């Protein structure tokens, strides 16, 4: 089973500059664990130290926000597209490092 994951610019440092990567997993949590193996560091950017998904990053399965589905237990099926969408403020983007710089 293969899931396509769209990676936003600030996270592409972790994926070696790739805007799109493949992941395996029956749900979001498994897919992120799977990504972590190939791209170490991605998990801590998506989850807080308390193990919760960060509130300034949303994860979508196809067109739907997983917060309104089953959070990180949202089931995935072959061909699903997962999008990671961080809050961006715009302009000079003086917050650039908030995902890539820590």
């Amino acid at each position: 089973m293969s899931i396509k994951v769209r990676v936003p610019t600030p996270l592409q440092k972790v994926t070696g500059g790739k805007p799109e990567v493949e992941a395996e997993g029956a749900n979001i949590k498994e897919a992120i664990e799977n990504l972590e193996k190939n791209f170490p560091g991605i998990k801590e950017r998506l989850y807080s130290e308390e193990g919760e998904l960060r509130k300034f990053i949303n994860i979508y399965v196809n067109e739907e926000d997983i917060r309104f589905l089953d959070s990180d237990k949202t089931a995935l099926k072959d061909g699903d597209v997962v999008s990671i969408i961080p809050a961006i403020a715009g302009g000079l983007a003086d917050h650039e490092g908030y995902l890539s710089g820590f």
Partner: protein
Amino acid sequence: MDFTEDQIYRYARHIILPEVGGVGQEKILKARVLLIGAGGLGSPIALYLAAAGVGKIGLLDFDVVDRSNLQRQILHTTKDIDRPKIESARDKLTSMNPDVEVVLHNTRLESSNAMELLGGYDIIVDGTDNFPTRYLVNDVCVLLGKTNVHGSIFRFEGQVTVFKTPDGPCYRCLYPEPPPPGMVPSCQEAGVLGVLPGVVGTLQATEVIKLIIGEGEPLIGKLLLYDALKTDFRKLNLRKDPKCPICGEKPTIKELIDYVEFCGMPGS
């Protein structure tokens, strides 16, 4: 309202559209729109709204034009360097269309002045560049029942949506919290493709006109993502969060807060 002959001629290409017509053009001429930020996003928004004949355009910005702005902020020219952005903007807008009343707000938007400033307008266009102002604009719009046309950009990517409560979601439904301060190094410029705010701002201006004339489907409950490198447009669904602290079922935020403290960073 009677159009002058000049107006009938100026707005002819609108008036012949069935979706706009004389009725829609009259709505545009009577509309009051506040642009927060007269920079990269504000430039195309202001120019198109002025060209369309939006009756009252408020410009809120306290910055002066810098040479490094000119790569994308098409309201300003080399001659405007060091002038206040809103004064430079006013000159362009009034020379483009004398029908438009341009109101200047040379100030930083803060909790103490935001309710009064935004209260005088029908539609608020958020083209700011920092999180404290985004949350402040959101909360004022929810509390006052104003429509917030939101656009943001990052390098080659843009996001556009329309926040319209009580029926649609607000910015807090989308992002309950800003990135924490530990992850926000200050004043680190990331760069932005100069034409990107042109695309995103023009989409925002389109939403404003649609909202004024009441035609089409505005981006309420939809987040439009634009990727300039891939030339990719996608729409995601935004849900109203029943637990939203300001527009949810049991709101806990009933008045404005300290947004700099909330975001843990200085406003810029």
